[in-house]
């Protein structure tokens, strides 16, 4: 009897282990997924680069001007799970991603999986990037390959157990990673709203900071863009819906001007981590900034997604 119980227990454990192993397996694109694309364009890729905010984490901490194109890594994101260190993604053959294939780059961006077949931590905002078009990803890689090669490794993440176990991220992805659109725009939505949706929900990865998360770090999509306590611990990231506490009094022109200049309608200025983001947004075309504004005004209004501090 005892032996039978033990056997059953072992089978359950083994079964659970096998299920974990299967469910948490890193996925990748189909072999021919990039076959039908146009030849990559570095020129288009530059726009994707600014829309995607790559420089904000992958340039050296505090880099400004042309130094934002040197993707040495080193910016630290301090979170409840530990400290994530943005890696070198310059086109350096050994220390950066210069030796990567197009497929490896696309798998990193769209599936959050490394060339070695391991999960990346979602501090790298691939849950948003997964909504990007493969053509944009391909163009982006072409642009990155035109940038300066930078030597040096940015260092390891400093995480505590159990977050050191990358395999577990596979389950996190199953639970929280959705590459379909977040907002259901109506059939009558304008082209600008659709373009804005693509930029905000995909490359722009606005929701990664502006949407609150649950304790496991999954985004609470029913409070999409409603603002959140900063993942880095200090202060809040504001509500950018038109709900209470948000940007209901802003016109589309106000939003576009803020993205271009960094000034709010009251001429308060951009601050904190958004300064770097706004510098990226200033590099987009006016049409794309207008599209982001159109989309934000179309998102369902929500009250603040963080508790009032007073």
């Amino acid at each position, binding site marked *: 009897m005892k032996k039978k119980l033990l056997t059953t227990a072992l089978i359950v454990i083994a079964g659970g282990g096998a299920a974990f192993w299967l469910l948490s397996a890193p996925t990748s694109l189909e072999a021919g997924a990039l076959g039908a694309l146009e030849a990559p364009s570095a020129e288009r890729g530059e726009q994707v680069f600014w829309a995607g905010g790559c420089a904000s984490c992958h340039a050296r901490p505090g880099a400004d001007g042309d130094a934002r194109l040197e993707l040495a890594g080193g910016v630290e994101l301090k979170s409840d799970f530990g400290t994530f260190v943005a890696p070198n993604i310059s086109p350096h053959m050994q220390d950066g991603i210069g030796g990567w294939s197009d497929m490896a780059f696309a798998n990193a961006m769209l599936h959050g999986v490394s060339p070695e077949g391991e999960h990346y931590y979602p501090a790298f905002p691939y849950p948003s990037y997964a909504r990007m078009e493969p053509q944009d990803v391909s163009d982006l890689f072409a642009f990155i390959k035109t940038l300066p090669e930078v030597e040096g490794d940015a260092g390891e993440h400093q995480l505590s157990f159990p977050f050191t176990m990358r395999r577990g991220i596979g389950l996190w992805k199953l639970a929280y990673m959705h590459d379909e659109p977040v907002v259901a725009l109506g059939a009558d939505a304008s082209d600008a709203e659709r373009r804005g949706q693509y930029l905000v929900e995909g490359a722009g990865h606005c929701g990664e900071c502006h949407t609150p998360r649950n304790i496991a770090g999954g985004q609470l999509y029913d409070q999409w863009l409603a603002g959140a306590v900063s993942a880095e611990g200090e*202060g*809040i990231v*504001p509500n950018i819906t038109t709900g209470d506490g948000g940007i209901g009094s802003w016109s589309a022109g106000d939003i576009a001007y803020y993205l271009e200049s960094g*000034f709010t309608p009251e*001429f308060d200025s*951009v601050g*904190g981590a958004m300064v770097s983001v*706004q510098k990226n947004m200033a590099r987009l075309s006016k049409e794309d900034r207008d599209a982001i504004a159109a989309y934000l005004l179309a998102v369902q209004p929500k009250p603040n997604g963080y508790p009032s*501090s*007073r």
Partner: protein
Amino acid sequence: MKKIALAVSALCLSVSGVAAADDPIAVRKSIMQATAASAGLAGAMMKEELAYNPAIAKAAILTLNAGAKSYGAFFPEGSGEGDTTAAPAIWEDAAGFQAALDKYMTDTAAALDAAGKDGPADLASFQAAIGPVFSNCKSCHEKFRVQNN
């Protein structure tokens, strides 16, 4: 009559002196509000929502310059708590904060110089003068302000 005016202005000075000592958060907020209002005026002219006027331009530059010179005096140790968006970095990196204030003062003084007696002659020269001043807003707020509501 003149004596009364003097007495009144002295009274105002001492009242504001007391307010400053008691509530540096309130004082620095009002300086920043005046700064934002002046930046708003400047911005409205640059966006051509408001016709360019050299006297208004100069008044805006003067206000920014006065703010730049006085702002730093209202961040005593311990004033990071309460109804404020001041970041802990102001005290943790006091030298960095001072450097940011110094740069702001240098840039507003240069704008004042460029403005001359009657203010910048046209919108283009005003933009050239005020551009470097505006860049201070975000560079300082990037590190030294925390949004908390």
